[in-house]
């Protein structure tokens, strides 16, 4: 009898302990920043926040960048989205307009002018801000100094700002020999991922065009687009300066090739700076950081001011907002930016001598030169999210380089797909 009583007591005690855990509200936070230098600061904030607010528990869930859009869509479709999530501007606007996000206007108002207005603008559409920007990454041209010296070409001088595209191709050609290639990364990606969408967006911006005009008309099928797409395809088909397996890449093969000394230049997010330092110190010691090349219409860079959004139906919107504000505190956001070589989305966050380092300067320069290619500071629209999400540019590039379809035919076909996007049809 005593034994039974003891068992009952232990069970009751265990259950009561468990029930304390059950009472805690759990808020799921999806992050796509899952690299070895990206995850630890986030884990730290989550831990600190959970200690500060014991009534809730933020659960950090990792989602790969390559599949983030499909995962969000599947979760929304299954009526089980996370409470909070990292969102690029085109996705935040798309989901916001579709009614899946809570506006974060009050957070933006509270932080006032401390948040860079141009970054807030990118997450704002139809009078509401759908995600609070927390970091800002510009892409950087990582160049092997030793390989560049071998080519005899000098890096761009300060008055030049950057190489032209033709100069970049010239350097890449000289670097390409003996199973070593000149260029790889998001700047010229042909992979089956969002990187190809970014490469095409940058190429058409360099040529002074977009896929739609100010009035929202689809103008993708135009001579400048054809020239821009041809320029990208030529890297593979004519100049052969990018690794021949590029159309088959689905993950981080491009960065791996640069790290293993197979490619001389990598055009990619500044976030890779720390990964190269950690994983390939020999390559890191030879790094030269340059801005992206310019085209006929100037420079272009896929600047990523990702934000954090709150999904409708979140178990505790007030605490989710608290978490975003906590995230945006100078000490927290700085920790993040420092460990991933990005810039803070807050002005006070960047006021630290640490951000004088070249990796930050080269990003600041390109931002200051207005080299964005997400409509150059204006609001993005839901159709931007759809073009990226549906990988229309990627299909186009694969058709050209793998299936041998002429550039003008592939561009025309992509333009038709864009014209038939649900958001375009609905005039969003």
């Amino acid at each position, binding site marked *: 009898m005593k034994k039974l009583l003891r068992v009952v007591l232990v069970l009751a005690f265990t259950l009561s302990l468990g029930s304390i855990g059950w009472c805690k509200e759990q808020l799921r936070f999806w992050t796509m920043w899952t690299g070895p230098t990206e995850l630890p600061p986030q884990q730290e904030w989550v831990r600190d926040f959970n200690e500060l607010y014991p009534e809730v528990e933020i659960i950090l869930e990792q989602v790969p960048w390559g599949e983030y859009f499909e995962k969000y*869509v599947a979760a929304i479709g299954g009526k089980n989205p996370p409470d909070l999530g990292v969102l690029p501007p085109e996705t935040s606007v798309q989901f916001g307009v*579709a009614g899946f996000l809570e506006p974060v206007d009050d957070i933006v108002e509270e932080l006032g002018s401390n948040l860079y207005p141009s970054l807030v603008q990118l997450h704002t559409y139809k009078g509401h801000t759908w995600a609070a920007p927390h970091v800002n990454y510009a892409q950087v041209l990582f160049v092997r100094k030793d390989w560049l010296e071998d080519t005899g070409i000098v890096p761009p001088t300060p008055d030049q700002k950057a190489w032209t595209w033709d100069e970049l191709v010239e350097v890449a050609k000289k670097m390409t020999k003996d199973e070593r290639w000149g260029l790889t990364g998001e700047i010229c990606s042909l992979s*089956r*991922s969002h990187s190809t969408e970014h490469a095409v967006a940058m190429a058409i911006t360099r040529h002074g065009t977009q896929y739609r005009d100010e009035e929202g008309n689809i103008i993708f099928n135009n001579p400048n687009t054809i020239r821009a797409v041809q320029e990208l395809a030529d890297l593979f088909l004519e100049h052969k300066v990018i690794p*021949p*397996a590029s159309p*088959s890449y689905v993950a981080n093969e491009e960065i791996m*090739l640069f790290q293993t000394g197979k490619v001389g230049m990598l055009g990619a997010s500044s976030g890779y700076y720390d990964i190269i330092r950690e994983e390939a110190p020999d390559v890191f010691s030879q790094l030269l950081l340059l801005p992206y090349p310019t085209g006929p219409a100037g420079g272009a860079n896929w600047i990523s001011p990702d934000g954090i959004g709150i999904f409708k139906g979140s178990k505790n919107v007030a605490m989710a907002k608290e978490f975003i504000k906590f995230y945006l505190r100078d000490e927290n956001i700085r920790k993040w930016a420092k460990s991933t070589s990005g810039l803070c989305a807050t002005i006070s966050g960047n006021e630290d001598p640490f951000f004088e380092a070249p990796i930050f300067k080269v990003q600041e320069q390109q931002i200051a030169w207005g080299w964005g290619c997400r409509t150059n500071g204006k609001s993005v629209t839901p159709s931007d999210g759809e073009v990226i999400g549906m990988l229309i540019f990627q299909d186009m590039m694969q058709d050209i380089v793998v299936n041998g379809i002429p550039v003008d035919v592939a561009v025309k076909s992509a333009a038709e797909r864009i014209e038939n996007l649900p958001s375009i049809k*609905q005039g969003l």
Partner: protein
Amino acid sequence: MINTLEREDVAGYLFLIPAFVFIVIIIGYPLVNGVLLSFYERSLIYPISNFIGLENYIELVKDPDFWNILANTFCWTLSVTGLTLIVGLALALVLDNPILKGRGFFRAAWLLPWALPTIVASLMWNWMYEPTIGVLNFILSKVGLIKEPILWLAVPSLARLSVLIVGVWKGFPFVMISLLAGLQSIPRELYESASIDGASSWASFKYITLPSLIPVISIVTTLQLIWNFNHFDIVYQMTKGGPGKATMLMSTAVYNQAFGATRLGYGSAMATVMLVVLCVFGYMYFSLYKKSWE
């Protein structure tokens, strides 16, 4: 007597009700809903829900990509099923041979591909196939078989072959183990009699082994056809259906349409076509199962 049987029958059917209800909820409802969705234009993101009749199917029939993807899927299904059967049977015969030493070791080793999570296997093969830093090209060039790196996943025809190899590698252990069980159930006396009558090894295989294995082979093959036609993970992980759409299968195309393009209706129409093909395979399976039971 009849009354007793009837009462037993009724009790039997009553016991089936919970399972039946469960199946209707978790299989029947999504299935019917999926077929119904194929008659709608519906987006996962925007509030669009228009009944459009057969328009999704008409678009499918007119879409050359759809026919290429369907052909890819049949090629993949038949090739993987055929090759896993040949490899599985060959290795089952090796394992069934009493003169083989260390059978336990080989059985465990050959089961490994099946035990390995598909995501791990796909990533592992992806890196092995990497033309510049992958181990496969490294070995082939070291032994002097190649001078230029082979672009395993970047050339459409090679990409098809490369994912096929992984599909066979991942699928043969199931066939091997099933056939080994079949082989071990064949009475040894049959082989002894055949040997006394002067039958060669080939004759024993042709007239004893193969006929005895036919029921197992039929069922295993049909199951493989169903699983391979449904296949998603290896191809999605390794190539995402590329390069171009060279390795795109029906299941990956359905996923892309429903969750990438957010065209739920069109994706459902593709899935319904898959369902029809799978029903044929399912019918084959149950016919063969019934036959072997009889």
